[in-house]
């Protein structure tokens, strides 16, 4: 059982990462990753919705018949997003001013429906909840890495306006890494998102290949006499 959970964690963060492995959710990804702070905000909001939708759908999975499952999932996700939007606007208004733009964009995240369909509707509540959390964190990781790269290359800062998102304690995160930087507009504009994303995807492949090669070498080492003893 615990190895199942380890699998879910590893899938969400790395092996089956929404962005880096499944290349899903590119619409919200490219739209908001001008800065690392925006990426973080969008990532956390999406994570919250993924956890809630994963849990709800897994609890209701025996009730929902296959014929109408997709409209029901869409309905559940849309209601969750809309309610989140209303509650944030009413009671966490400062956060809503920063995230407000992104919240309706969460429904364009096909990965949420994807996880509902491929995981939550086939598993118990606890794994579904964990899957939502881990997929959400993996997505957040991708958003922050992409946002940070674009922000650094495009405007020479890191986590600008983090205090608006997280409160004034986060001011230490706001760094100007390249003073007097004139800015590299291409990276900030949408094409820059595609370019940086391409580089990151290539980077993930390179890492995976290096890891696989090392594992193969290790296996070969086991097959030689020293490995016989280990068996």
């Amino acid at each position, binding site marked *: 059982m615990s190895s199942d959970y380890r699998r879910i964690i590893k899938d969400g963060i790395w092996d089956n990462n929404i962005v880096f492995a499944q290349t899903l959710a590119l619409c919200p990804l490219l739209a908001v990753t*001008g800065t690392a702070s925006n990426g973080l905000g969008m990532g956390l909001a999406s994570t919250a919705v993924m956890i809630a939708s994963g849990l709800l759908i897994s609890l209701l999975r025996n*009730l*929902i*018949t296959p*014929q*109408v499952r997709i*409209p*029901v999932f869409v*309905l*559940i996700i*849309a*209601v969750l997003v*809309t*309610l989140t939007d*209303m*509650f944030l*606007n*009413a*009671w966490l*208004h400062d956060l809503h*001013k920063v995230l407000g733009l992104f919240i309706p964009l969460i429904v364009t995240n096909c990965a949420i429906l994807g996880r509902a369909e491929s995981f939550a509707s086939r598993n118990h509540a606890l794994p579904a909840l964990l899957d939502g959390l881990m997929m959400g964190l993996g997505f957040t990781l991708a958003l922050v890495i992409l946002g940070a790269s674009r922000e650094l290359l*495009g*405007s020479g800062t890191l986590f600008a306006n983090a205090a608006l998102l997280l409160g004034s304690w986060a001011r230490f995160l706001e760094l100007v890494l390249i003073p007097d930087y004139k*800015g590299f*507009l291409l990276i*900030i*504009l949408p094409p820059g998102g595609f370019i940086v994303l391409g580089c990151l995807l290539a980077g993930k492949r390179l890492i995976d290949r290096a890891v696989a090669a090392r594992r193969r070498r290790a296996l070969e080492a086991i097959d030689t006499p020293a490995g016989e003893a280990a068996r």
Partner: protein
Amino acid sequence: MAGKRILYPALLLGGFSTLATVLLVAGNLVTRDAIQERQREDLLVSLRQVVPESHYSNDLLADPLQLPGPDGTPVTIYRGTRDGQVSALAYPISSQGYAGEIRLILGLDATGKILGVRVLTHAETPGLGDGIEVAKSDWILDFNGLSLGDPPPEQWKVKKDGGRFDAFSGATITPRAVVKAIENGLVFYRQQKTRLLDPPLSKGLPVVRVEGATHE
């Protein structure tokens, strides 16, 4: 048999839709007042940026005036008063920028002099056109203290067009649009001056209330 197979999914989908509607209506009811209150606060914050509090002594949001704007759509004007006289005005203005509409709010004193202008929303290019935001540059503050005759009408342009105002390098369309919006806003003041400066307590709300009462 076939009827039963289709009945359950249909009821299920109908049930979920009803439930979703109920939840959304409930959410709306619970949050509506709070959201309206937050929007009032936001509006007040932007009004205070363009009309310093020393210029009025009333509640700016209490008695807004509606007048037909230059293009026919109604403009809501928030008026500050002191000693029963209109002492400050603030109203939204807009024009077409490089990427969609730029919406601003313009604050004037009773003589039509600009107290402040701020951009409310825009979709201009980051790094090029967004210098119109006060958070990005002081450009928008240059308008403070100006009015329709100062500088003269032919100078109400960006420098590139022979006027008085700076443009950003690489972005002329954005500042040009802002200058145009402000100029139009000042022309609106000149055209509607008498109605704008009419003390709010002599007309408006009380009259409307009496009419409403007679209809009922």
